[in-house]
């Protein structure tokens, strides 16, 4: 019976634990082990069964190689031994003309399968728990599609600017790159980030509570430059931005924002936009709902009124408890979260600890971040990272000691306008539990005595 249980625990992805038990229980008999795995797998179905078998058999293979070639043991690569990778040549230049992360890394966007009905109109989240610094690698920037990713040929892509303008223009990608350009580090966040948590703690992972968030260096032309080129007529007050995707994504942007800091971007983190992020051209409205930053941008129409399209009426409006709804809730308000520790990154040992996290504000720079260890009773100031850029992710950290005491860990950001990140209670008292979007409240991680970290809410 105990042998049986040890295998079940393996199937829950805790490989090390299982192997430890394995060597005790099964060491002499490999066939017996295989038989046990097969028996166990009989009771499973689908993915569970496949994952179980894959993992189980791989572990058996590992076990047998340990017995046959002692030097494959992990300690063989540790001091004072010379590691195997130092005793042979590695691949040379351009073995991979476009490089990948190390095979030992497991950096992945992930989705919550039950959230949406179809992958082409869905969302995946950035693995914030595995990232350092403020830049999100392009390959793991969260995705949000309403009609899948269009495969746009840049030579055949055009941006048309028309409507209330003196000179309606059609621009090729080559044309766009001739304009004076800017490169700016800005965050982009889906307003539904955290939306699953309005009515209670639900997601036991940082990736799912806060992962609809990314921060990249974007390169492009300021929209104000393009608007000078077409000459906006005096009655022009709004801009319709429209994508070339199957959803024809469209949002109404007030001219004031367009003249302030909107970018029409073709570059992301030093290379062309990824297809997932709007290749070859997207709008970027810094600090605003990610949805307004229309991807695969094909058209800008200048008009005198907003269009009230689906993504600014049916969706991306915020239902209040009295049945009325906010519209045009563009700004992403000040927010922050502790990224280490978090449910995916529990504390493994007592002693010195640097608590790390990210803060951001759609209204400008982060001025300060405070951390509480006791659920918001007492707070202490943290140190901000070196780069404090408006409308960009900003690092904060607190050096402390953890000696096995349970914590209710929180962070609270303050931006340069003086806005203080609110508590969940404050937001719920004002907005109820059904507004879906714009949940920027102080988040709580419960660090247990064992170092495990859980998502909790304090009410």
């Amino acid at each position, binding site marked *: 019976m105990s042998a049986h249980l040890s295998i079940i*625990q393996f199937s829950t992805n805790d490989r090390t634990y299982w192997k430890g038990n394995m060597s005790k229980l099964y060491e002499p008999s490999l066939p017996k082990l295989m038989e046990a795995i097969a028996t166990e797998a009989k009771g499973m179905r689908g993915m569970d069964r496949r994952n179980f078998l894959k993992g189980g058999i791989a572990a058996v293979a590992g076990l047998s190689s340990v017995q046959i070639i002692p030097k494959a043991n992990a300690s063989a690569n540790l001091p004072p031994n010379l590691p195997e990778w130092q005793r042979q040549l590695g691949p040379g230049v351009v073995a991979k003309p476009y490089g990948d992360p190390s095979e030992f890394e497991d950096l992945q966007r992930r989705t919550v399968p039950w959230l949406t009905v179809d992958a082409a109109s869905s969302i995946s989240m950035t693995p914030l728990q595995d990232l350092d610094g403020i830049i999100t690698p392009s390959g793991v920037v969260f995705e949000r599609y309403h009609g899948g990713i269009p495969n746009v040929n840049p030579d055949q892509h055009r941006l048309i600017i028309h409507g209330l303008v003196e*000179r309606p223009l059609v621009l090729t990608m080559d044309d766009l790159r001739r304009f004076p350009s800017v490169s700016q580090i800005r965050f982009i966040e889906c307003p539904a980030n955290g939306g699953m948590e309005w009515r209670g703690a639900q997601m036991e992972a940082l990736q799912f509570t806060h992962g609809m968030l990314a921060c990249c260096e974007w390169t492009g032309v300021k929209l104000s430059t393009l608007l000078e080129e077409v000459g906006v007529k005096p009655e022009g007050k709004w801009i319709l931005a*429209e994508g070339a995707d199957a959803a024809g994504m469209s949002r109404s942007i007030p001219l004031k924002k367009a003249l302030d800091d909107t970018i029409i971007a073709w570059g992301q983190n030093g290379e062309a936009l990824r297809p997932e992020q709007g290749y070859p051209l997207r709008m970027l409205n810094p600090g605003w709902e990610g949805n307004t930053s229309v991807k695969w941008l094909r058209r800008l129409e200048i008009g005198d009124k907003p269009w009230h399209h689906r993504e600014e009426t049916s969706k991306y409006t915020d239902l209040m408890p009295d049945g009325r709804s906010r519209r045009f809730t563009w*700004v992403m308000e000040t927010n922050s979260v502790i990224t280490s520790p978090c449910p995916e990154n529990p504390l493994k040992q007592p002693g010195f600890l640097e608590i790390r996290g990210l803060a951001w504000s759609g209204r400008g720079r982060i001025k300060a971040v405070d951390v509480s260890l006791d*659920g918001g009773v007492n707070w*202490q100031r943290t140190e901000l990272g070196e780069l404090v850029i408006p409308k960009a992710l900003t690092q904060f950290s607190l050096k402390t000691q953890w000696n096995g005491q349970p914590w209710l860990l929180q962070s*609270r950001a*303050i931006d340069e306008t003086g806005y*203080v990140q609110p508590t969940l209670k404050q937001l719920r008292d004002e907005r109820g539990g059904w507004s879906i979007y714009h949940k920027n409240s102080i988040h709580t991680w419960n660090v247990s005595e064992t170092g495990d970290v859980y998502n909790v809410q304090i009410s």
Partner: protein
Amino acid sequence: MFKSLRVSVVVVTLALSGIVSAGPLGIGSTATPEMIAGWDIDIRPDGVGLPPGQGSVAEGEPLYEAKCASCHGLFGEGEGRWPVLAGGEGTLDTLHPEKTVGSYWPFASTLWDYIYRAMPYTAPQSLSKEEVYSIAAYVLYLNDIVEEDFVSNQETFAQVKMPNEANFFIDNRPDVQNERCFQSCADPSTFEIVTTINGVTPTGHFKEDSGVAANHYEGNPSAASSSEIRVEKSVTKVALSKEALLGRGVYDKACQTCHNSGIAGAPKLGDVSGWVDRIGQGMDTLNDHAINGYQGADGVMPAKGGNMALSDDDVVNAVAYMVESSR
């Protein structure tokens, strides 16, 4: 061809240069009225953008049933978890608000605009303007917003008033004000700690050696999480015919939305028991239903899955792929 195109562009530019002065940097080409007309599809609440044409509730009903009902339900009630289009009146201030076209949407123009630009989901911008007028009229009728005899056109559609229009207001945030307090900011004796519901979080990514007791997260898988996890089909192991291999690409683009999830009674790819009786009817019948559409007791198959841009051969190939992968 290339040369003559170049020449015509130059001619157009010269012809317009007398009227339109260049911008400050002189970059780009004039967007001609023809170019703009092809792309300018947006509609506004005041009716700006509505094209000539018309369609009635009566004309909308069969169109809706053929092209929309497979996802949105025959009465707009929504199949599976696809959007509900009708009903929900009086629910917005309750604990179970249901946001539909009738109960929530502030403007009818949004309906026209969205149907034209993005529907049907698998074949956007495939509907004619008359079809959009008709289907939009029918969806309004399903919501009791227009009468049975309503005919929508540029004039009448712009006059439709939606019941929830007055209940939207402009963003008035910041709406809450927190203080930057440092000492004794809350009373811990009043704390109630709410934990997560076990089993709703996918936890496959937790680090293998993180020390997290995995059973903590997998204690009690809820119906939602366990039933929605898509089970991969090992279709690649099946030896596929040439037609089926061609059909696979068609399937991924046009069919998988329904046939992966089983929406509207669609037999799922790889579901042997769901396909066996259908296959028994013979390929001719299956192909006929797939190309021309079919409505039976079990569900609705829109003609070509709603994507009329597909050729008959595309559809036949996709059927071959599904059949060969499901027996």
